[in-house]
């Protein structure tokens, strides 16, 4: 966006300057917009649609990365096998896990060290709309793990108890999948797991995971002596580099530790293709919208030749006419931009999901129409106004007075 704005900045500044210090008849332009209602509405409508598509597609990408950003805390570290990249591919032995739990930098609360050993497996679940099934992540974790993920809060039922093959399921999964409601059962690893609780992960990736007790899951999947990953909370975020170094240097460990924000940011790249696709789509559509705006503005100029002549005759200079019509085009497209940005709000919060190609499991996210994205959409519509309005405005400023007065 800034790439386009920078070269245009001098022109924009001049336009603002002209509007402020020259007698540019902006009120006249504003009224003129509403004289040709059909033309105005069609241009505003077309531009609103383009801006809406732009904001909504980017809000999907935003939603994906937001789910990941929300998942990390900067005083927490996740420990994986070297080069494992994702928890599912990682393995940490129980002996290593014990060693990490006694590290002096690990924070404690009333119940003990804020340390959790997790096992990640995946499970195919049927979709609620009956169109197939998707793979979701199942996390075997501990109660300390549940406390450490402060985004997560229990909304119904209770947490799992060790040894009873119990699972808790996020609220957001209930609508997307079949058979995961409170009191239901899930079959995996040759066992039947009772759903005893429902939690809310407030939009983080944990909203896409089923949680069970780690020892139960280890037994069911015969991962004897193994965890997938270990996560710890440190006394303060400043301790992170020292802790990461210890994990790598200790010969008994030789593990890769990543601050949670880094780990999740790497996974959050999953939103990239969608973002690129959205940008390509918008770029193509913008060209179409600019042509449409140009059409409307040319018609406006052609229909008001005698008015332009009058303006010139009573003393408006050429560049003031140029600024005046350029402003009219910008007003027109910005109306469309604001309408489009407002319409895109209708999509805010819509839940969707996609499979992360790094973890092979389904991650739910919500469209995130942020004020920033909406502002970007409006700026975008201003650009369209400049692009679509310049030639017609230039033409308006070049019409000879005598000819214009004749009509």
């Amino acid at each position, binding site marked *: 966006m800034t790439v386009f704005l920078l070269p245009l900045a001098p022109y924009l500044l001049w336009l603002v300057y002209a509007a402020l210090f020259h007698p540019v008849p902006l009120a006249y332009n504003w009224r003129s917009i509403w004289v040709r209602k059909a033309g105005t509405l*069609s241009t505003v409508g*077309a531009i609103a649609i383009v801006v809406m598509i732009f904001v909504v597609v980017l809000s999907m990408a935003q939603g994906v990365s937001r789910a990941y950003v929300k998942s990390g805390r900067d005083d927490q570290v996740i420990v994986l096998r070297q080069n494992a990249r994702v928890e599912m591919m990682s393995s940490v032995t129980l002996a290593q896990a014990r060693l990490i739990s006694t590290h002096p930098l690990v924070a404690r609360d009333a119940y003990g060290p804020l340390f959790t050993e997790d096992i990640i497996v995946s499970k195919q679940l049927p979709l609620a709309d009956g169109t197939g099934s998707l793979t979701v992540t199942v996390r075997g974790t501990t109660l300390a793990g549940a406390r450490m993920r402060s985004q997560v809060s229990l909304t119904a039922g209770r947490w799992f108890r060790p040894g009873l093959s119990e699972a808790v399921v996020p609220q957001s999964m209930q609508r997307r999948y079949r058979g995961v409601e409170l009191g239901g059962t899930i079959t995996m690893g040759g066992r039947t797991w009772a759903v005893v609780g429902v939690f809310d992960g407030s939009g983080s990736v944990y909203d896409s995971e089923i949680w069970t007790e780690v020892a139960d899951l280890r037994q069911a999947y015969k991962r004897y002596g193994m965890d997938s990953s270990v996560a710890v909370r440190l006394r303060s975020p400043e301790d992170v580099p020292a802790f990461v170094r210890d994990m790598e240097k200790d010969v008994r460990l030789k593990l890769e530790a990543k601050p949670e924000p880094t780990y999740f940011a790497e996974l959050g790249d999953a939103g990239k293709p969608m973002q690129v696709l959205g940008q390509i789509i918008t770029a*193509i*559509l913008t060209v*179409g919208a600019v*042509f449409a705006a140009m059409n409307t503005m040319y*018609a406006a100029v052609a229909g008001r030749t005698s008015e332009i002549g009058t303006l010139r005759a009573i003393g408006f200079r050429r560049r003031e006419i140029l600024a005046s019509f350029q402003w009219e085009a910008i007003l027109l497209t910005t109306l469309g931009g604001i309408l489009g940005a407002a319409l895109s709000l209708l999509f805010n919060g819509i839940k969707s999901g996609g499979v992360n*190609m790094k973890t092979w499991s*389904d991650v739910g996210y919500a469209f995130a129409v942020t004020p920033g994205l909406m502002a970007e959409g409006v700026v975008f519509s201003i650009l369209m106004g400049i692009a679509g309005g310049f030639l017609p405005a230039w033409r308006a400023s070049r019409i000879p007075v005598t000819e214009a007065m004749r009509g």
Partner: protein
Amino acid sequence: MKFLSLVLRSLFRSKRRTVLTVLSLAVSVFLIALLQSLLGTMDSLTVSGGSGTRLVVQDKASFTNVIPQSYANFLRSQPEIENFTAFQWFGGEYQDPRNFFANFAVEPETYLDVYREECNLPSIPPGQVRDFKRDGNACIVGQELADRFGWKLGDVVPLRSSIFNITLRLNVRIIFKGKRKSDEMYLAFNIRQLQEAVPWMKGRVGAFTVRARNAADIPRLCDRIDRNFANSAQETLSITENAFNLNMMKMLGDYSTMVHSITGAVLMAILIVTANTMAMAIRERTTQISTMRALGFRSSQILSLLMAEGLLLSLMGSGLGIVMAILAADVAAKVGGSILPWMADFIITGETLLLCVLITLALGLLSTFAPAYRASRRPITDGLRAL
């Protein structure tokens, strides 16, 4: 037909307006054609030469889990099964993680036979087939993939997998030419390499691909296999290969909803734009139209002349858009194919062309009807007075 020149003249009465509208339509149709073809291409990939006669036996809980290789014994005893092979997704990277392509560990003895349509078995020299089966480090690659990295027969390809945390050095023994470019975008090697290097893969495979003698037997076969392993520690899920591929595609995300919504919104936008142009064009000619009617044209004739004008406008717009899309499809296939292997087969599909024709018709008729009808019914005296 005799009025064609009249329609053309009227259409180009205001050249700039017509050209701008046509361009605006063209880029929008261009986008719709590309997006819809993207979906069409994705759909077509779920079906390949022999996929109709194959089924996949995977772990019931998740396709990422492995199942015992000993399940093969049961498969071997089923009379409807012609042949089967085991495979495991390796997730190997060549030089750089961004060089993504599919690579599997397979059983070389049976693999070529089960996938004989896809790798075009009759065209592979017998010497290469023998080398592939004998050399434990052998691998088979598709022509398109080999071209991309400049591999030749006998080259050594190091593949590093982050899933298994090992690096394999594989010898290229077969380079095959498939029917489609996307069929040539993968590499396969002997699963024993993996089972020897990774302790927990010993005696295990990712899934089996089973080729049935008769496609009609598949539902019965799926049912029997799953029933046999029901209540075991690892239950199986058998599905047709097309359904398996469809599941994989589903993982790419719900692009079809997105594409259809965008198509709908864009159609709305170009309908508004075209309707505006036609309304302007007709309003300007009020007097002209009344004069024509005064000369003896009937209102139905006027209506059809105006409608023809609208149709022609939308035809020019979408025609140009489709031509642009067809020209761009090659580029998209080349550029996209280097990032996403399946994009190598990207073409503007027949369904897309049909859709574009429908769009053109609907656009021309819908955008013009209201103003044209009003103009054709206007009392002649009114229109002449408007001068």
